[in-house]
């Protein structure tokens, strides 16, 4: 590259650098602070660790042990898993059936119903809580895992069905014709042909939905009320912020515990995640 081109490109590199800095510094500060001693956190900024970075003794896992044991975040972590994995599995399962029905089966009202589905993708969940809550408390579903699985499944269905439908509608028709000549029923076709082909699409929908549920605060607050024994990470951390708002050694470690799994998923399955986002870009 010649020097003139390099100079001409300097503003470009600088602008990108500023963006990258703004995006990375807050998270970096959180990560460093979560390993520091409480007294040091309150007394000096996290950036003061850099001059003596390799002198040792600055970092420990104390804060993590503190939040996982003392504040019960280990329990919340398991709760988060126990909420999001089944809910995601159920909703992907039901959505794949519905998507196939909408894409390849013929029945009256198919178009209207699918448009309703598209419309419901952006409905504010706030519209749904008040009538459901009394039913939930009558059926003893409030504050239980099955209750929140059902709610998350239903709330996720419009988008997941839409995404899987878009994929399934693109499967070549010949495949179905040859299957029906061979005498396969729709269910067999679905199970033996459509599902195996759709695995990549189902994977990205699964990841998308999993992260949505893992990161959800509102639905968990509403349906699990404030019961600590079923609270997921988001609810527990929101409580920590309210009750221990200045104890940064707890808050930073807790926040990082909640971010760890999404970050692992993100870095290992980025391809699928991005595909999910590109396919679902109309979702609210």
């Amino acid at each position, binding site marked *: 590259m010649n020097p003139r081109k390099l100079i001409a490109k300097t503003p470009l590199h600088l602008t990108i650098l500023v963006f990258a800095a703004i995006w990375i510094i807050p998270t970096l500060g959180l990560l460093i602070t979560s390993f520091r001693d409480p007294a040091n956190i309150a007394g000096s900024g996290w*950036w003061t660790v850099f001059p003596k970075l390799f002198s040792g003794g600055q970092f420990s896992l104390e804060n993590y042990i503190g939040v996982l044991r003392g504040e019960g975040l280990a329990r919340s972590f398991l709760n988060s898993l126990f909420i999001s994995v089944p809910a995601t599995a159920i909703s992907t399962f039901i959505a794949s059936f*519905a998507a196939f029905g909408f894409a390849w089966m013929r029945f009256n009202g198919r178009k209207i119903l699918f448009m309703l589905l598209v419309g419901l993708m952006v409905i504010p969940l*706030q*519209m749904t809580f008040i009538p459901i809550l009394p039913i939930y408390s009558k059926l003893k579903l409030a504050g239980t895992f099955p209750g929140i699985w059902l709610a998350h499944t239903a709330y996720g269905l419009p988008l997941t069905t839409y995404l899987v439908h878009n994929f399934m509608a693109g499967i070549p028709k010949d495949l179905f014709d040859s299957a029906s000549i061979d005498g396969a029923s729709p269910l067999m076709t679905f199970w033996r042909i459509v599902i195996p082909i759709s695995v990549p699409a189902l994977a990205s929908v699964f990841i998308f939905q999993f992260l949505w549920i893992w990161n959800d605060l509102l639905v968990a607050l509403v349906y699990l009320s404030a019961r600590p024994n079923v609270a997921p990470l988001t609810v527990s951390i929101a409580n920590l912020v309210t009750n221990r708002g200045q104890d940064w050694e707890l808050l930073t470690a807790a926040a990082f515990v909640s971010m760890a799994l999404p970050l692992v998923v993100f870095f290992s399955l980025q391809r699928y995640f991005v595909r999910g986002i590109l396919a679902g870009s*109309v979702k609210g």
Partner: protein
Amino acid sequence: MGVRAKGWRSPRRITLFLGRLFLQGCRAVWRWLRSIRWRSWGFVAPALILIAFFLVYPTVMTVARSFFGRGTTLFGPTVEFVGLKNWTYVFTNPVMLTALRNNALWAVLFTACTVGFGLVLAVMLDRVRYERLVKSIIFIPAAISMVGASVVWKFVYAYKPADLNQIGVLNAIVVAFGGEPVGWLIQRPWINNLCLIVVGIWMWTGFCMVILSAAYKNIPKPLLEAARIDGATEWRVFRNIILPLLAPTAAVVATTMVVQVLKIFDIIFVMTNGNYSTEVIANRMYKEMFNFFNYGRASALAVVLLILIVPFMILNIRRFAAQEGGR
């Protein structure tokens, strides 16, 4: 037997007639049942039942409930009809007016910045070799929870009195340049609202960037090269070619952002809980439900959100119908 049977009114005939009618009806229902494509419905039924129960039924009931008063039951003897009282509250109460103003502020600033930054980054990053790295950095916040992001930024905004060491990055920078530390989340009404909106922008810019970048890479490069060879400056290439070609995608992304931001809840709930004039509709709705036990007002607030979102709902449906038509 005192009853004299006469003509068509004889009990026997009536019984026969009714019997035949019943049989015919049964047969019709049977034929109709058989004509329904059970196998087709079987695929979509579980999803439709869940959606009907969790989304359609509650929507109708919440609209109705917004005309009734306090209490935490849906309807019942203790819940009284109050007409438009909840609605006058929504549009006249000072706290509510603040919330509506803040939602408008969020909608404008958040949407403009996420889409704007996303567009700029998509175009700029295409020209450097470390594109993938920076893209990952910008996109990371999209994977974490808003609760996590709120803690991250609460720490950035942390405030200590001027005579102590600052532990928040932002105040440390202010002090390093000789300024007084600022209570970023307390300075009403502009600084704290702006600081909250920054958190939202930080979270969602990556989303916009990824979609706009995919669209940008679909633009045939010879088109841009041709313009450059004809002597167009970079700015004109951007303004007259790239921007018009990306406009449809940007519009889709912008509507997604507006829909997101109208429902904004987590960031405010965690960082300020709506104190210091930072209230928004969704947070107020939560308070009315669980702190003030007023399902009537909470319903009205939910309906406000719905009304704001309906235009985008219609837009989505029309866009979908157009897509299907073109298929």
